[in-house]
């Protein structure tokens, strides 16, 4: 059965439910980047993000018949992603890193490869920001990533996380307050 690019996600997922591979491939190509980015920003590791992105799509394939069409397919997909990420983080031992850690992987790599100073600074900035985001409590982190990096509206985030819009507001407010506390000293010193 041929798949048209204009077909909606909801139509495609119904076809995936009857194990239509072309429909699955089309959905995969539509969301691969977005899901990988979300997972990467939540987990902070490229290789782990790759593994978890695979898990997300395998889960979609396996439970396509459970999609009821009550919410948008994208909300359902993001909810699966968020659950997989949260479960993974819960299982994994937390690695406590200091924002001031001078022996970081990035820094060592920068020295070893004698990259220009600007690249090193950019990497260092990204690392500090990522660590600050990673230190947020899971729900705040998810809401923040979905809002800031994935461009979702409060209403969409509420749908994905199954919470109210005012709860999303509150999560984002607290996330920003925590990030401000952690990152403002760096901003004021011109380190990032």
């Amino acid at each position: 059965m041929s798949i048209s690019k204009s077909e909606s996600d909801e139509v495609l997922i119904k076809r995936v439910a009857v194990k239509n591979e072309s429909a699955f491939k089309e959905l995969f190509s539509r969301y691969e980047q977005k899901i990988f980015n979300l997972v990467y920003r939540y987990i902070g590791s490229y290789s782990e993000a790759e593994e978890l992105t695979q898990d997300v799509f395998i889960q979609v394939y396996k439970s396509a018949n459970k999609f009821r069409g009550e919410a948008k397919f994208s909300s359902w997909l993001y909810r699966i992603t968020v659950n997989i990420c949260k479960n993974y983080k819960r299982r994994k031992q937390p690695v406590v890193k200091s924002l001031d850690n001078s022996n970081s992987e990035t820094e060592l790599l920068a020295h070893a490869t004698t990259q220009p100073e600007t690249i090193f600074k950019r990497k260092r900035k990204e690392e500090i920001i990522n660590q600050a985001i990673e230190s947020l409590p899971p729900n705040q982190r998810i809401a923040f990533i979905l809002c800031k990096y994935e461009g979702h509206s409060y209403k969409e985030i509420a749908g994905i996380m199954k919470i109210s819009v005012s709860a999303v507001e509150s999560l984002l407010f607290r996330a920003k307050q925590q990030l401000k506390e952690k990152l403002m000293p760096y901003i004021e010193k011109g380190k990032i």
Partner: protein
Amino acid sequence: MKCTKAKKKISVYLDGELKEDEKQELLNHLEICDACRKEKEMLSSLLTTIEVPKEIEAPPYLFLKVKQKIEHLKHISPLPQAAPPLRWLRPITVGLGLIVMFFLSSLTGNYLGKIILSAKTQKESTINQEFNTTLRLVVFDDIPEESFGNIYNNLLTGKR
């Protein structure tokens, strides 16, 4: 607007999610409140700083890897098949199940009730029989001539 509320609304405002009337209220507050204006500038600067490149390139051949894993899973345990499309049948099935359960329990109750009632009736009739035998006036009949009771009775009354 109070500063505590204004600080929360600044966050929503910077995300472009504040309703028009609330936005106006906040902007009015920011005009007169230095602390909240400073908070807004700080938060705005923070959010600009933490902007990172929008897209991170996903690794290559990801679909192939997913496909391989799905194939592998199929060999280990068959993946769930598509759900029957007759989802609307579920409430009817549940309803029918409840009706059948109701009738079955009525029949069982009726049958058990009969058994218990018959046992009870039998027991009651035995008790009545014993009661009648015990309390019947037969016990006041004359004592047989040759019985020990009669001899004893004669001794007491002085009869021979």
